[in-house]
């Protein structure tokens, strides 16, 4: 009789589809996965200890490099955490500028995530090229305001570095005009594609209760059917002034996560339009003029979280009254969202592993810090 052996395959740290230096140890029975263990730490740069050695302002450029796709979101979370700890207020105009930047980041990220998901499925950069075109426009906008495309370092305690240059708003309005056509085209290209449907429907299903107990957040949680979005659940900044919906999925598979991301892009555009409308009435300058960047917060701790495009990004800061944080912990969404990966992949084929990993949308800068 033929007997089968278990095969151990290492989807190694150097791999084009693992979204970074990420290793998957899999045990296979034929092509079906029996067990999967993620191994990471290849990009561990000891950011948390660096954070303790730097002052609060010096940490800001390092937060850019956490989730390097969404540097504005990281900056936002860190700035909010320090402002909460030190009690710094932010003027309205700065809040609107921040929201504009973060929502643009969300569009950036979701377009990119969809592109990378299709790369993982073997679509050879088609969708990625379209997504990158819109991403390039947004990166141009970021370069205009902050000086850099990706490592923006734009947020400060009490506001942002500088005000919007005059060419920013017309460019943003043009971009928002083109956005519906882009998203509709994306849906037309992808959402009914038979190959996509075959490869993503009922793959990697994460049931509701399991999603909550695994502490997953972000589009992954919402695709499982739970309408939990930190912008609505515990509104921070000025998100309670905007009307927008929360897309949720029904099954919790890869297809739902994909659709949720597309719909979130539409909702982000809605928020941006409202922000642009309300921006001219906003009072104040782009930064709180009384806020000292050399903050020395009082002794205490604060945990602040935002809805970053990948999930709940939280910063837990402990201050001992000096200019440097005593403990600087980052609650990274990609790190926590990876917890159910073993469970999600069990029983699927090895080709599905990459697709499931793509749907979780991780970035190793955050996972490893």
């Amino acid at each position, binding site marked *: 009789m033929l007997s089968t052996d278990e095969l151990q395959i290492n989807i190694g740290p150097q791999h084009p589809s693992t979204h970074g230096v990420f290793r998957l140890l899999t045990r296979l029975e034929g092509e079906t996965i029996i067990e999967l263990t993620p191994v990471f730490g290849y990009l561990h740069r000891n950011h948390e200890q660096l954070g303790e050695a730097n002052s609060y302002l010096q940490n800001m450029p390092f937060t850019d490099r956490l989730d390097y796709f969404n540097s504005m979101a990281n900056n936002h979370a860190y700035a909010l955490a320090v402002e909460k700890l030190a009690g710094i207020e932010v003027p309205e105009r700065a809040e609107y500028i921040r929201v504009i930047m973060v929502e643009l980041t969300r569009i950036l990220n979701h377009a990119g995530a969809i592109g990378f998901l299709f790369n993982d499925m073997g679509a050879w950069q088609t969708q990625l090229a379209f997504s990158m075109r819109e991403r390039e426009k947004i990166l141009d906008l970021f370069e205009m305001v902050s000086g850099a495309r990706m490592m923006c370092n734009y947020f400060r305690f009490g506001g942002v570095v500088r005000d919007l240059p005059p060419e920013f708003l017309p460019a943003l309005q043009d971009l928002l005009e083109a956005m519906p056509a882009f998203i509709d085209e994306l849906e037309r290209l992808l959402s009914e594609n038979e190959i996509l449907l075959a490869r993503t429907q009922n793959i990697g299903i994460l049931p509701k209760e399991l999603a909550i107990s695994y502490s997953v957040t972000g589009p992954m949680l919402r695709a499982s059917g739970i309408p939990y979005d930190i912008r609505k659940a515990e509104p*921070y900044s000025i998100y309670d002034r905007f009307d927008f919906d929360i897309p949720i999925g029904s099954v919790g598979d890869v297809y739902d996560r994909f659709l949720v991301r597309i719909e979130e892009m539409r909702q982000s555009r809605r928020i941006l339009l409202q922000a642009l409308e309300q921006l001219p009435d906003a009072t104040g300058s782009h930064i709180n003029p009384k806020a000292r960047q050399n903050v020395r917060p009082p002794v205490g701790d604060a945990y602040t979280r935002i809805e970053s495009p990948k999930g709940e990004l939280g910063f837990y800061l*402990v201050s001992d009254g000096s200019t440097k944080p005593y403990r600087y912990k980052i609650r990274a969404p990609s790190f926590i969202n990876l917890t159910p990966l073993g469970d999600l992949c069990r029983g699927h084929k090895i080709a599905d592993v990459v697709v499931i990993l793509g749907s979780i949308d991780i970035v190793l800068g955050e996972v490893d810090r």
Partner: protein
Amino acid sequence: MSDDNSELSARQRDEARAALQRDLPFALSPSGSFPSPEGGPDLLATSDIVVEAQQIAAVARYLRASLNYIYLSNITAVDLLAHGCFELVYHFYRLSGGPALTIKTRLPREKPELPSLTPFWPGAAFQEREAYDLFGIVFKGHPDLRRIYMWDEFEGFPMRKDFVRQGDKYLSE
């Protein structure tokens, strides 16, 4: 916004503390079990709920079952060298929204062991492994407690405050 948030937060905290007092009174930790240093800031002073380290699993289960805090967001370990203890901070949320409920426990630095939440709360798995890897806190009952960032043969716990910063080994050799 932050004002009514902190008010809500305080209300949640008081409500949780009262419930714990009623149902799990042995779990709440008496204050002053660790000394505060003479000079220097007192990082142990807090208004959050402090529980006994060995009861954390019971407290977490209780919070999930009775008070509806079903979402564990964050587990952080803090090394309070001057006070001679590790502090573990847990942040729980309700899915209906609202601010966090912060639970803190303290462990002696010589023997940092406490029960793991992972068997019934799988979301804690990676966070506890991280606390083990970087601080050396042992979570009893964790199904797979091994290093997560550092390589397996690494010795020492890097995020501890008394970990000797070794500098750039490669350039100096």
